[in-house]
């Protein structure tokens, strides 16, 4: 018993901090999402009404919520596989025994992760610029007409995806690199002796051995990408024609632009439920795949 009590004491500081700075705000936000807390309520608390699930009901009936959700899923469904493929590709290249100056490349490829979004967004806005941008200049050389990357509703999201993938792939690359280095060399040796090609080695040794790493990276990346906000905030401000407004961006607008904290909290909880379901499904699929 005493041991247990001591353990609780050791846990207490962390629990207190978690309780005050995580649990309490979450419960408060849940409560807030059941009210219509807004500017009027800020002025006079008697203007606060308990609205039960009305905020959620309203959101589910609003076009802007569904379109924001659509943009978020677009970003996740395209961005996550692309990001993982780029990370894995870069990790495989770095892991190859033929590569020289490994540390230089590893640092260079990891560098975008530690840069500030706002600072690199300035650079990327130049790259994407319709008239003076590097990207259109290169495309122009091969005869493709200039594309208004950030101004055209069809191209804005792909541009944001490219920017986000570039910004984030280095982090997963490092994890993959660690995973690759943990695969025993003798497996490859045996495969080579049996005459397996590089592709076969990748499919039958590298991928299965990386399974758990892939699952973890997948879940982390999905939950990270669902929370798309900073990239459109600094690149497009959610436009053009709201084509890059994500769910989190909608929450920011409702909360900090229009000061409807009730509705904003409801958005946050809906996003939480969606992310929870998606990652739970991924985990389950991952486990089943692992057992088979």
């Amino acid at each position, binding site marked *: 018993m005493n041991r247990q009590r001591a353990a609780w004491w050791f846990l207490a500081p962390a629990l207190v901090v978690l309780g005050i700075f995580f649990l309490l705000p979450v419960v408060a936000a849940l409560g807030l999402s059941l009210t219509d807390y807004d*500017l009027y309520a*800020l*002025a006079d608390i008697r*203007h606060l009404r308990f609205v039960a699930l009305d905020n959620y009901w309203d959101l589910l009936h609003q076009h802007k919520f569904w379109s924001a959700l659509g943009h978020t899923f677009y970003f996740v469904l395209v961005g996550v596989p692309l990001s993982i493929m780029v990370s894995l590709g870069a990790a495989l290249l770095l892991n190859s025994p033929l590569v020289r100056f490994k540390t230089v490349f590893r640092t260079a490829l990891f560098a975008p992760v530690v840069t500030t979004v706002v600072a690199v967004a300035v650079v990327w806005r130049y790259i994407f610029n319709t008239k003076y941008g590097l990207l259109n200049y290169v495309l122009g050389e091969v005869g493709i007409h200039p594309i208004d990357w950030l101004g055209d509703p069809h191209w804005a999201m792909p541009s944001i995806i490219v920017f986000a993938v570039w910004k984030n792939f280095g982090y997963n690359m490092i994890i993959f690199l660690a995973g690759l280095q943990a695969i025993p060399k003798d497996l490859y040796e045996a495969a080579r002796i049996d005459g397996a090609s590089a592709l076969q080695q990748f499919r039958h040794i590298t991928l299965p051995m990386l399974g758990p790493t892939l699952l973890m990276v997948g879940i982390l990346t999905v939950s990270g990408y669902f929370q798309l906000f900073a990239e459109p905030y600094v690149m497009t401000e959610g436009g053009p024609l709201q084509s890059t407004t994500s769910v989190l961006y909608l929450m920011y607008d409702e909360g900090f*632009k229009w000061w409807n904290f009730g509705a904003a909290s409801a958005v946050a909880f809906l996003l939480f439920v969606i992310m929870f379901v998606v990652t739970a499904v991924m985990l389950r699929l991952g486990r089943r795949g692992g057992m088979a």
Partner: protein
Amino acid sequence: MPEPSRRVNATMSRAASRLLTIVALMLAGCSSSQDAHTLTFWTIGREGEAVVKLLPEFEREYPGIQVKVQQMPLTAAHQKLLTAFAGNSTPDVTQLGNTWLPEFVALRALEPLQQRVAASTVVKPADYFDHIWSTNLIDGSLYGVPWYVDTRLLFYRRDLLKAAGFDAPPRDWAQWRTMLAALSHPDRGSYGILLPTNEYEQLMSLALQQPESMLRDGGRYGNFRSAGFKRALAFYVDTFRLHQAPAITAVEAGNPWEEFGRGVYAFYFSGPWNIGEFRQRLPADRENEWATAALPGPDGGASGAAGGSSLVIFRRSTHKDEAWALIEYLSRPDVQQRFYDLLGDMPARRSAWDGGSLRTDPKVQAFREQLEHVKATPPVPEWEQIANEMQLVAAQAVAGELTIDEAAAEIDRRADRILEKRRWILDHPHATTGSP
């Protein structure tokens, strides 16, 4: 093992008391530690840079007062002001856009200024543009003193109009439409006008020219299905359908000043700050090729939206007299003229226009003409949100997804939803102590 747990206990309580001390210190740091004669003045955007050049003279006149200016970027200003209100740390004086004023009045954050104005020898209401002044009156009480004004009108290429056979800018919508038609050559990439589809100010200016207000029943419901608004919306949407304006956003438009100079657009629908932009970006010898004109009304007569910023005092300020002295100083006609020379922000009072560079500059005369006839936006806190929704729906109509009638009904529907809380508060007066 009782020993370690007691030790942990002791450490914990020591840590807790240390934490408490830190929290107490932090709280002390938060509370205002400024001395009695420091006045905090928040500004939004570029105004802060210019106003600091006017303040040394004020501080010479009032040796007891020191003004601390804090500049906020426009994009963060609204949020910062609301957060300051919620966190009980509002400044003494701030610049406040007159579309934001109703919101802060609803919060009961602002000090009524009626009595101070009545006793003032400097601030004379009759000298101010009527409708600009009235944007500071909410339910009959005055909450701000207009600082500078803003209204959107037409910049036009005089040489292009002349070449097309028009000696004067349009005076009504029919003439305007004829000119737009003559000056638009979409096949050659030139258009009559630029109307960025993500900016609501242009459509709002056209809608304010109509006799009907955009909200009805004391701001309880949208009134966008009125004949007047539909007329404005139809004129706006037709401009795109007739290919007299490209359906692009301001982001896509990129550098409109240069394109205006190249003749991509013959008209440019914008505000006073662009006089400075054009002078800076277009060669001086081409100064005569462009001019400004009041926004033509549907059947003649110039009018537009009453925009601009006011100076307000926060109710929680402990230096209201000093704050009022600063407002009076910044409202003096000669100070307003210097402010215009520094920044190009147009003065809110007529006497400031009668001297200095404002009297002689031909580009500003159209603004003066229009300022006499501007109209205020509906004075409800929700206005900016409603205007945003209005523009989103209008952009859908421009894209051909909605007819004029459908768009008007949709804007009404969205406005009514946004105004639901306001209706509830107005119709349940027992829940309020002051008027919202």
